[in-house]
């Protein structure tokens, strides 16, 4: 419906190219670009009309274009993992893919032109270049820290050099940039740039470290989480995370509509770990001993 901030359209693949360990897909999806902002995501149906995989797969919007040769397009960077992402990365030009986008809350942009550090783990860097542009338009100094297990799992190092005022690269195995994790270098970068905000996207463990480092160095972390999502649009309650509200109270909130971007210091990292997110005892409506 118009004015609802989200569209569902029959998309068409116009490009699918391999980039390192990932696939970079461009999909015609009229109406998305006009609504989307960096940090939002798209939910794609997978498997075609005979598919046994009912649930949509969510991907950060890498970029969007309001019009072009084909009408509006969106780009995503996909790591082939299970059946859904394997199907998507196997698509050819002209193949159809149903699109629901944009979804979720974007990265909040600072009111003032403060220095920012953008941290991406693996394909988590995908939404950051667009974000960097938006920040630079507002006069922010932008540095990026990109990390991955190995060189082929870094995404967008070249693009980063164009979009940011400084780029630091780390890999676990040292195959590119500094050996180590993004959190090993982040403190330095925050200090050097005097960053007020650290934006991050990547695996949960990384987001937690980024939050800790940012906090220790006096910056606010804005993290885009990646919880398992069944619907992506806020109706199923599968994607919840324990997050403190402005009132200090922890609630199990839906990361698809109240996230995926959260202020890092409000996420209850203490409840998250080992592939499980617990309900903190002090969360609203938490189970009480002996049942609810």
């Amino acid at each position: 419906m118009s004015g609802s901030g989200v569209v569902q359209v029959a998309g068409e693949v116009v490009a699918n190219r391999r980039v390192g360990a990932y696939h970079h897909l461009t999909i015609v999806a009229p109406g998305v670009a006009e609504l989307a902002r960096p940090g939002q995501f798209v939910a794609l149906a997978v498997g075609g009309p005979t598919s046994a995989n009912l649930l949509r797969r969510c991907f950060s919007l890498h970029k969007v274009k309001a019009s072009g040769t084909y009408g509006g397009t969106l780009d995503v960077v996909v790591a082939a993992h299970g059946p859904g992402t394997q199907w998507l990365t196997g698509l050819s030009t002209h193949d159809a893919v149903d699109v629901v986008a944009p979804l979720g809350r974007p990265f909040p942009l600072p009111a003032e032109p403060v220095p920012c550090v953008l941290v991406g783990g693996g394909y988590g860097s995908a939404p950051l270049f667009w974000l960097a542009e938006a920040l630079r338009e507002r006069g922010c100094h932008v540095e990026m820290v990109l990390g991955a297990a190995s060189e082929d799992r870094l995404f967008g190092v070249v693009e980063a050099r164009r979009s940011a005022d400084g780029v630091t690269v780390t890999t676990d195995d040292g195959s590119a940039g500094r050996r180590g994790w993004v959190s090993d270098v982040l403190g330095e970068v925050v200090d050097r740039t005097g960053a007020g905000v650290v934006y991050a996207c990547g695996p949960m463990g990384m987001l937690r470290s980024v939050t800790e480092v940012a906090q220790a160095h006096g910056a606010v972390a804005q993290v885009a989480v990646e919880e398992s999502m069944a619907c992506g649009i806020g109706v199923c309650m599968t994607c919840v995370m324990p997050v403190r509200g402005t009132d200090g109270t922890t609630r199990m909130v839906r990361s698809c509509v109240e996230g995926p971007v959260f202020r890092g210091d409000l996420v209850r990292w203490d409840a998250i770990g080992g592939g499980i997110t617990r309900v903190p005892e002090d969360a609203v409506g938490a189970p009480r001993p002996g049942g609810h």
Partner: protein
Amino acid sequence: MVDMSTTLAGATLPNPVMTASGCAANGKELHRFFPVSDLGAFVTKTVMRDPRSGRPTPRMAETSSGMLNSIGLQGPGIDAFCEQDLPWLAAQGARVLVSVAGNTAEEFGEVVQRLVASPAWPCVVGVEANISCPNVANRGLVFACDPVSSERVVQIVRTRVPEGVPVFAKLTPDVTDIVAIADAVLRAGADGLTMINTLLGIVIDTDLLRPQLAGVTGGLSGPAVRPVAVRAVWQVTAAMRAGTIPTAPVIGVGGVRTGADALELVAAGASAVQVGTATFNDPSAPRRVLTELEEHLARHGFTRFADAVGVAHERMAAL
């Protein structure tokens, strides 16, 4: 043009397609894709007395043509529901079927009492008692697995809901004899039945070699379970036709993704149909199913939806 209206124990709805409880939140999110008032009724997420956080995550696992969920009835509690969600639905002109539950039979009663007292109550066209949830007083055994517990809940709910507003009991298929449970709740005063809730299932994460859901078990839903839903509707309405249990309207739910799927439930005996998991695949699914169902009925030459209800019982192949 097919007359799509349907009457459920006195409540007349413009059409028979609904959301399924827990698969559409409380309306705002789906309203971005189609007006919730387009549906025959909007079925709300099961609401309990107190706010509930639900269970830890992972709460879901995709399965072949379906999914498991273990949300654990997360919700804001009946008071917040009456203050925020119900008035919003009323303002959209939605007809609302409110799904309620309790940890005990008495708690069902409390929830209904507060619901009925809500200023937005007039938009409520029925109450769906989700008795497919654990009964704390009975070792956590699901109410709907036991005729006695089921009866008790329905009696309490029926007493608290004003005359003229129907009460539906939502049954689980995880029982040896669903007709016996249907019989028990109808005799206890239910005006209709909703069938089916999810089937109990487990998925093992084959990388971690442990249950994929943090809560171990979950409810299986989606097209995978449709034949079970159609069977449940068929068995229960066949018993009604045979006169062995009281006659009452049945709302069919389970695996509906297309108008043809909805027609299966209708032909098997359902007077209305809910669309659940399919909404995750296609946010417009409930609205689309309505359009497709009407097209199918027109193709078959029906002028009234009501004439298609249970038609398959009359067209059995002669053997």
